[in-house]
């Protein structure tokens, strides 16, 4: 949490600095004193302060430690995708029911199409329940399939399962705890 606090502090610091700068500039400006001049001058200086904030935002990550994007997040992605697809199918069923009520679909067609959609929905629900590797994994698999020739792609870091230390990509044992990677 300390990092967000220091962010906030940096942000406030620069903006205050900008406001002081704008005030000073307006105070000292001898030639152009119409409101529009002063407003634009102040806006320019405040924008410069925002630029300083952005500069800080650019440089800070370079000196802060590498964050690991949670693996849990990645593994839930495909479940989210499945969930989305299920919702889509459910919406389709609803829509179809609505269309039928509006008199746009014939009964026979409706039964047939709803049957097919329900089957798909049930399939999806089963897969969600099983937590089976779904859409995302397939994508990942497809991707690795496509990249087969370049299989020895370098990964800059790998994390130790025991102590969470970052190790070199080609390390076989963890450099801190010695566990097999």
């Amino acid at each position, binding site marked *: 949490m300390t990092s967000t606090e220091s962010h906030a502090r940096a942000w406030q610091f620069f903006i205050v600095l900008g406001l002081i700068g704008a005030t000073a500039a307006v105070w000292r400006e001898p030639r152009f004193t119409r409101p529009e001049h002063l407003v634009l001058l102040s806006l320019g200086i405040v924008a410069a302060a925002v630029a300083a904030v952005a500069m*800080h935002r650019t440089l800070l990550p370079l000196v802060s430690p590498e964050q690991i994007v949670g693996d849990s997040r990645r593994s839930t992605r495909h479940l989210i995708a499945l969930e989305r697809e299920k919702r889509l199918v459910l919406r389709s069923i609803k829509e179809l029911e609505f269309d039928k009520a509006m008199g746009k679909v014939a009964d026979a067609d409706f039964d047939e199409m709803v049957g097919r959609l329900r089957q798909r929905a049930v399939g999806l629900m089963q897969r969600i329940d099983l937590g089976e590797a779904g859409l995302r994994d397939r994508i990942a698999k497809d991707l690795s399939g496509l990249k087969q020739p370049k299989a020895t792609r370098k990964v800059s870091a790998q994390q130790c399962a025991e102590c969470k230390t970052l190790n070199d990509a080609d390390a076989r044992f963890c450099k801190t705890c010695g566990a097999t990677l």
Partner: protein
Amino acid sequence: MPALGTFLLLTCFVVAAYAATASIAGAKRQSTRLTESGIGAFYLVTALMSVATAVIMYAFVTDTYAIKYVDRYSDAAQPLLFKLTAYWGGLDGSIMFWVLLLSVFGAIAVRNSRESHRELIPYVVAVIAIVEMFFLFLMVVHNNPFETYLADIPPDGQGLNPLLQNVYMVIHPPSLYIGFVGMTIPFAFGMAALATGYLDDSWLRAVRRWTMVSWLFLSLGLTLGMIWAYEELGWGGYWGWDPVENAGLLPWFTATAFLHSVMVQERRGMLRVWNMTLVIVTFFLTIFGTFMTRSGVVQSVHAFGEDKELGLMFTVFMTLLLVVSFGLLIYRLPLLRARHELDSWVSREAAFLANNWILLFSAIFVLFATMFPTLSEALTGQRLTVGPPFFNKWMLPIGLALLLLTGVGPLLAWRKSTVDNLRYQFLWPTVAALVTGGALLALGVRVWSSGICFAMSAFVTTTLLQEFVRGARVRQQYSGSDLVTSAIGLVARNQRRYGGYIVHLGIVLMALGFAGDGFKQEEQLLLKPGQTVTVGAFTVRHDGIAITQDAQKQMVTAKMTAFQDGKELGTLAPAKWFFNKRADEPTTEVAIRRSFGYDLYVVLAGFDAEQQSATFHVVVNPLVNWIWAGFGILALGTLIALLPERALAVASVKIPEGVTAGTTTTTLLVLLILGGVAIPHAVHAQAPLSDTGAIIKRLPLERELENEILCTCGCRLPAGTCGMFQCQGKEKQLGRLRTLVEEGKDRETILATFVQEHGGADILTQPPDTPFNRLAWALPFVLGIVGAVAAGTVAVRWTRPSSDDAVVPAAAAADPYQNKLDEELRDLD
């Protein structure tokens, strides 16, 4: 100060380059340090561009004429508003403004999607940063808005073109730019999805809103352009098919196609490659449009002048863009394969296919016709003009087909409609169309295109009404509330669908407005003070001329009084403004008497201050205001579709009063439309009555040919519509035309004479009939047919063989999942 500006632009370029490199490198190495830093740099570009903008605006308000750009587009007498907006009044500044907007949009988009689309963001940043780099590069090496005079700093600037000193011109370019620039965001997300391989629908969800917002602004920009042309140029029309207007229209077509086909992907998972293509093409067209305006490859009133070097840079960028984006698309084709199935030809999917085909065809046709003169000159060396008559002839049937689809699409169900359904759905709309058509025939309306348009508008309106009423009824059965609450609930539950329907309604109103053009009446009048003349239902009296002056300009104003059916309507004051710095090109201040049915549109075409007599161009324009009203409805519909899903749902539950307002509006609209249908008759029945002033007599052939011959003053309009004051080119052309007509020559001879005298066929507004030019007439046809065949083939390929329908069993009825499914379905509403 100029040095600071140049320095800021250079810094922006470097920072953008860093942002692109850092984020791509970060994504490749999976290093959050680099990607986060890249995002920071991306924000930094935005901040630096804001500072640069403040600097140039400050230069404008402090009259720093040492900067060439400030000198060219501002002067001391210019009002503050126009000093500020002169920022985007010229080429260099408009590029800078473009980068500013792009960086702001990019920053917002990245901020909003940073968490939800984490894996796409580095590439989004990179793509946008690269586009920014291109425009920054243009500024740094070629069009630096901060360029200064080395010596002889002028004491006063040259001033912004008076034509641009108009409120609409203040909002028109930014809103077009917002539309254009906004299209970069969907492109960036599309590219990111292609680059990462995460090609499920998540990128679409991220960009849907952006596309809608950009589309709305693009529509707003186009409409404002129309209003500006109508009020400021004084030729009585609003759309001249100028290359630059077309440049704005092209991405509008493809974006509209995208907004429709994206639904097919969301609902059915089909058309994934196609959607990606549309996103790329739309973005390409925005760049291409900018290229057309900036490089001078086409002759246009808007063009900033010929600039070969700039044109070259754009060409290189566009080629790279096409190669890289389509290369990525082809590379990822295996991942984009989708399960295509088309249950029936009579389904909404098929209607969407047709809609996409027509929109794409429109885009290709407009692009081709716009580029044809350049093409012809390059290939055959013959200069040509493709003017409004050509476009109008072609776009009319296309527009009508599109209008029909607007009504047909909503009536079809997803997947499949049967004959019985069709009968039930189409009965009322068809009846309405036939009744309207019959009524128009009976009333003696003889302009077939407008007649068909009115009938189709009735069809579409009835369709939409039926959709709302039937939908509300169905909803009523579920919810048990009254019809009005159900209607709002309906909109709330699916605001994209019903927002879309409201947009369709707006399109209908606009179509009605366009159709009104068929009943336009226009006359040239020569009036002495006190004389009156009747045009259509209106009578105008000329009361005299006043000449006044202010710091910027001299104003010549005619005082007129307008009457309708003997009743006084009020005064009219058409004027000419002679700006001190540009006295040779006075602006036209049109006097418009607006009303629901007609606009009385008066232009002061010439005057004699001593005699107090004046020449007027009087136009009675039916239904023009419906176009603007139609845009209002369109915007409303888009906003409803844009609302976050929960917003309206809550509103509809808590405030049922809002509901009533909604339906009343619709009812009012319908009444408006029904009322409007009766108008054309009235227009037609009125004939000019007694004249005391002189209507300048023109023979029918003369009137017809006025639109076939180009004015030579550089306005790129047909001679009959040029709105320039005391235009030499127009007078010469019309004078010659009159002599020829009076000599009794026929149409062909007259046109041939003009071509011969001018020394080229580019004096005609349409390409003449020669073997090469047949290409112009035939190619759109060929393209259209090819497109239709392609869409048809695709549809046939996707049609599911009906034999496997039987396989679907109801076997798993006892499945516990079926019950769970029922429960979830119940909860969904």
